């Protein structure tokens, strides 16, 4: 009921409600505008991992989950790899911005006409290894003479080179082809050794099945390579704005990797419990996390910085790729590698 000039309590409350609603609407609208402006500022970037998500790809997954990429203004899409996903073809076709792959594959792509730029590397020493049953008595590479070795089809040229480099007569070794993820033939005792395996993946699984093994890292036998190298197309790298995106990307990933080194076991737990992929085993992932840290750092990274690309290692890999006929010509990695991004990121020397 109105009483003339003086508003009643009810009228005042109604006006107050209207004012509050207006203020709330304005605040929401402003927040919305600010939010959409923030979203617009994020730049899209895609990366295809080197393998199925596990501790090997902790950097990208953790940076994404913790918002490190967002903090750098990036909206990153992480694409899992695995059987049938080819990073070199994807980057070459322009379906993804950043690829993480093995140097041999990158060099093979370059030999076939693709143009790439490698700007960082996860591993300094290759985790690629030969895994042998302990009961086979193989204690050093030359011991495989007279033994049975299972070789994955794409690794055959690599294994031939390994024998050649280590003065092993191929006629003295019985080789048999095995499937890409097959460890059952080694466990069952049908073969004595398996090539190639990841130094801290298959060996652990084989030992978990009750078969003790010896692991021979190819890096110790003249076949080193910077596995899980980060690369983009030459055209992508030529664009200064996109180059800046790579700086932001690598800075965020490096931040994540620093968390990894603080607590590898915690990193393994994060990957297993994060539901990134099915079938990860916590024990194996913890083992892998602790071991892989040793392959990611060495005297070179202590001098230059974490994830630094090593021209000498790439030259060795290029020679090996030619010798094993993975490439039909010698690729000079000098122009293929670039430390420009790393220099801007200035990673910790460790």
């Amino acid at each position: 009921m109105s009483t003339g000039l003086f508003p009643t309590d009810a009228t005042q409350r109604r006006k107050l409600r209207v004012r509050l609603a207006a203020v709330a609407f304005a605040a929401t609208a402003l927040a919305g505008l600010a939010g959409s402006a923030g979203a617009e500022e994020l730049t899209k970037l895609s990366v295809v991992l080197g393998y199925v998500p596990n501790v090997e790809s902790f950097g990208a997954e953790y940076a994404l989950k913790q918002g490190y990429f967002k903090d750098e203004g990036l909206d990153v899409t992480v694409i899992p790899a695995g059987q049938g996903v080819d990073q070199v073809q994807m980057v070459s076709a322009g379906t993804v911005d950043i690829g993480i792959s093995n140097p041999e594959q990158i060099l093979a792509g370059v030999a076939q006409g693709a143009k790439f730029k490698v700007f960082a590397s996860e591993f300094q020493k290759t985790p690629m290894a030969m895994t042998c049953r302990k009961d086979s008595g193989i204690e050093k590479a030359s011991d495989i003479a007279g033994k049975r070795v299972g070789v994955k089809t794409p690794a055959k040229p690599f294994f031939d080179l390994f024998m050649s480099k280590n003065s092993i007569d191929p006629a003295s070794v019985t080789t048999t082809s095995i499937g890409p993820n097959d460890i059952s033939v080694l466990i069952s005792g049908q073969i004595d050794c398996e090539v190639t395996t990841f130094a801290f993946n298959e060996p652990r699984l084989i030992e978990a099945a009750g078969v003790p093994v010896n692991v021979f890292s190819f890096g110790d036998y003249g076949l080193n390579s910077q596995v899980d190298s980060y690369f983009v197309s030459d055209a992508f790298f030529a664009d200064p704005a996109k180059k800046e995106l790579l700086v932001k990307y690598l800075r965020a990933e490096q931040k994540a990797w620093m968390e990894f080194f603080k607590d590898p076991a915690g990193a393994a737990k994060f990957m297993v419990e994060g539901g990134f992929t099915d079938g990860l085993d916590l024990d194996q992932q913890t083992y892998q996390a602790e071991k892989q840290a040793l392959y990611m750092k060495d005297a070179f990274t202590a001098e230059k910085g974490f994830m630094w690309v090593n021209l000498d290692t790439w030259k060795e890999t290029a020679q090996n790729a030619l010798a094993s006929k993975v490439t039909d010509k010698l690729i000079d990695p000098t122009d293929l590698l670039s430390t420009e991004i790393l220099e801007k990121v200035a990673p910790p020397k460790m």
Partner: protein
Amino acid sequence: MAFESGILEQGLGAADEAALHRNEPPPGWLLEAIGAHRVRAVLAPLAVLVVVLVGWQSLCESGAVSPLILPSPLAIAEAFIKDGPNLLAAATVTTIEALTGFVLGNILGFVLAVAFLYSELSRRTVYPLAMAAQAVPIVAVTPALILWFGNGMAPKIFVTMFLVFFPMLVNALRGLRNADTEVMELLYTLSATPLQQLRMVRMPASVPFVFNALKISACACFVAAIVAEWVAADRGIGYLIVLYGSQYRMPQVWAAVLIGTAISMAVYGLVVFAEARVAPWLNRRKRPISD
């Protein structure tokens, strides 16, 4: 055929028709027309093929498509020349695996069909298992097959056999049951033995079905052998595809695929040829009256 009959309908005079009925050689103008039609029938698809190849080559040369994704036709031709011996040696291995699996799988399928026809017990006990076996993702168990049979041709032949026997089993069983009821009754009254029934009536009745199964498996046997080689092999077309693919030698990959396709089509052609020789009435029956 339709074109030839069209000529006959439209332009054949009474004298020509009479000559044809007397089995005399057809007149010259008719032969020329048929010849021109045949030339066109060959040239038309050839022209389309040339246009496609030129377009494909231009697309690759323009740089619009990465050579790691799509090689040019000329690069594929070069791969045939450069890696021909390797490709042919691999193709020989795969052909042996595929054809051995094809023959053994089809024999097994047919023998099982005959067994199921005459033995209620075997049909009730084995047929469900055979059907269940067909649902097994055989490629997934190929590593286990390598454990059992080693890494030679045996696991590839087994996979091929496994994929080939079921179409033959189902088709042959249906064909053997497709015998004319009246003829079967006649044989019964003549006291024909089951073997005589099988040989004289059931097997001829099953011929169209058997050839259907053979046609299905003619291409499938090659695909099966190549897929088995993908899993683990050190020879064969499937092995080369994996090896070349891992090195991004895409022209060689395509060359290997084309060789596989050509041999597969040749096997299919042989089955069609055999069908035409063994059961010529099947093709005649399929042709429309207007032909």
